[in-house]
């Protein structure tokens, strides 16, 4: 703050000055970057941990909502801070983000645009982002942190799901405090080691001509949203639909305590919510990696459905299968079984979903290689891919039929219907 100049002409030059002239300037910038990354990652991990252990449930609903808003503020720090060095990478990516404001309804769009960007072009935009980054967002985060700590004082820390004997409990001070200091010191060591190994380098300064040659790519924590926006069906006038989907995900997460109202807090008794959480994590990772590998490429909607659907199915099936194994163990251990007495319908459903996902992937692979052969001509790789795809499809079909047969053995309903169908066909012939 002592050296940085928040103006389009001074931002890059002052950042360079901090890098090369200020004592330990580059080191501090590097540590600042990696700790910011760590903050975003740890905030996400904290949110998912609270989700899985049901810390959002009564009486801590408002704590969850405050925590979620703190998460958005953290993302806001990332978004506003990214622009400040005024490099071609940061400015191009921020322009894409700011451009999304135009997709909002007209009245709201101009209001948000005025608040975030201002009406004075690049100079006002940079100054607003700087103010947001160093004044507004820290103040908001501090206020929210105060509220959260006060509520922590009122409600206490979320209790563990297992009962702990009083004699085994440990004091928050000094035992837990020393433990947290150990973790903080190890975290500091990790950040410093990474900063030493991968020191920050400054990309080129922003100019309109350089920006026109570069492909805008946001920082890693926004890549999953960026990838959703790149799906072909959301291009052009349909952009608000994509933004609506992302907003809906955020709204559902904020309102989670009022949606997931079950009394149960143990992970083993919440298969659906745990599976949904795992699917969310999986989809975010897949979208982010995919976005990283395909900068600027428009994703065909069929491919998106295949990849995202396949990811959801595979994670969902694995999660349900794990729950099934867990339930079996519970049955052998004691009376608190989560599915004791139920049929093996869940297992069959899980395997069926796997088979369907394999089938979906096989159809995608077959179609892709078939089109490749038609367009580019046959080669060994495309023929091998086509054979693999068709083989996978055949396996999926036979496995589905076998599963239907297995599931029908106890009830015989399917067999009765087949017999009926057979009679009708015979009567026709």
């Amino acid at each position, binding site marked *: 703050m002592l050296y940085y100049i928040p103006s389009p002409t001074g931002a890059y030059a002052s950042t360079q000055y901090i890098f090369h002239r200020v*004592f*330990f300037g*580059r*080191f501090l910038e590097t540590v600042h970057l990696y700790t910011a990354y760590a903050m975003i990652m740890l905030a996400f991990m904290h949110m998912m941990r609270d989700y899985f252990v049901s810390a959002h449930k009564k009486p801590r609903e408002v704590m969850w909502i405050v925590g979620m808003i703190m998460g958005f503020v953290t993302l806001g720090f990332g978004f506003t801070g990214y622009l400040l060095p005024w490099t071609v990478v940061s400015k191009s990516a921020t322009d894409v983000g700011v451009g999304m404001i135009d997709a909002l309804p007209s009245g709201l769009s101009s209001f948000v645009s005025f608040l975030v960007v201002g009406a004075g072009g690049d100079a006002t935009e940079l100054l607003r982002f700087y103010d947001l980054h160093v004044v507004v967002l820290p103040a908001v985060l501090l206020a929210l942190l105060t509220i959260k700590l006060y509520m922590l004082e009122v409600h206490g820390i979320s209790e563990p799901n297992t009962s702990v004997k009083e004699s085994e409990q440990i004091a928050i001070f000094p*035992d837990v405090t*020393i*433990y947290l*200091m*150990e973790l903080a*010191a*190890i975290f*500091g*060591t990790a950040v*410093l*080691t990474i*900063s*030493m190994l991968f*020191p920050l380098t400054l990309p080129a300064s922003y100019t309109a001509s350089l920006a026109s040659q570069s492909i805008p790519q946001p920082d890693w924590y926004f890549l999953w949203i960026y990838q959703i926006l790149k799906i072909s069906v959301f291009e052009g006038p349909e952009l608000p639909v994509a933004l609506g989907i992302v907003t809906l995900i955020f709204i559902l997460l904020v309102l989670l305590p009022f949606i997931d109202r079950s009394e149960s807090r143990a992970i083993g008794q919440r298969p659906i919510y745990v599976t949904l959480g795992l699917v969310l994590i999986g989809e975010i990772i897949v979208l982010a990696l995919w976005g990283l590998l395909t900068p600027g490429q428009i994703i065909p909607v069929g491919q998106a459905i295949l990849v995202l659907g396949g990811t959801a199915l595979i994670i969902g099936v694995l999660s349900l299968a794990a729950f099934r194994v867990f339930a079996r163990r519970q049955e052998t251990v004691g009376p608190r079984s989560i599915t004791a007495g139920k049929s093996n319908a869940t297992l069959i459903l899980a395997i069926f979903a796997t088979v369907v996902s394999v089938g979906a992937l096989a159809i995608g692979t077959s179609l892709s290689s078939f089109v490749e052969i038609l367009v580019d001509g046959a080669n060994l790789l495309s023929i091998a891919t086509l054979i693999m795809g068709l083989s996978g499809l055949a396996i999926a079909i036979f496995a589905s039929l076998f599963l239907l047969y297995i599931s029908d053995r106890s009830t015989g309903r399917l067999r009765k219907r087949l017999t009926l169908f057979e009679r009708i066909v015979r009567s026709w012939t």
Partner: protein
Amino acid sequence: MDLNKLMLSLFLSLQIISTVFLWSLNPTDIVSETKFAIFLAVDLLSFAMVAYSYRKLSWGQMTNSNWILLGSLGLVMLLLSSIFFP
């Protein structure tokens, strides 16, 4: 002297030495940035090991030798990197 106390003394000594070394660095020199990062990391890691040993010993428990070994290995790596890194 048992191994716990020996390691604790070593970690404490290392922490003091690295702190003194940090103050002796020339802040205007770009090479010092790397050295500063390394010795601050050494300082923090030795502190973590001291705190871990203290926590365990004050509970009347033995320290886990695997953790001590891992921490010591980390410290050796960091100290070696101070020689090889520019």
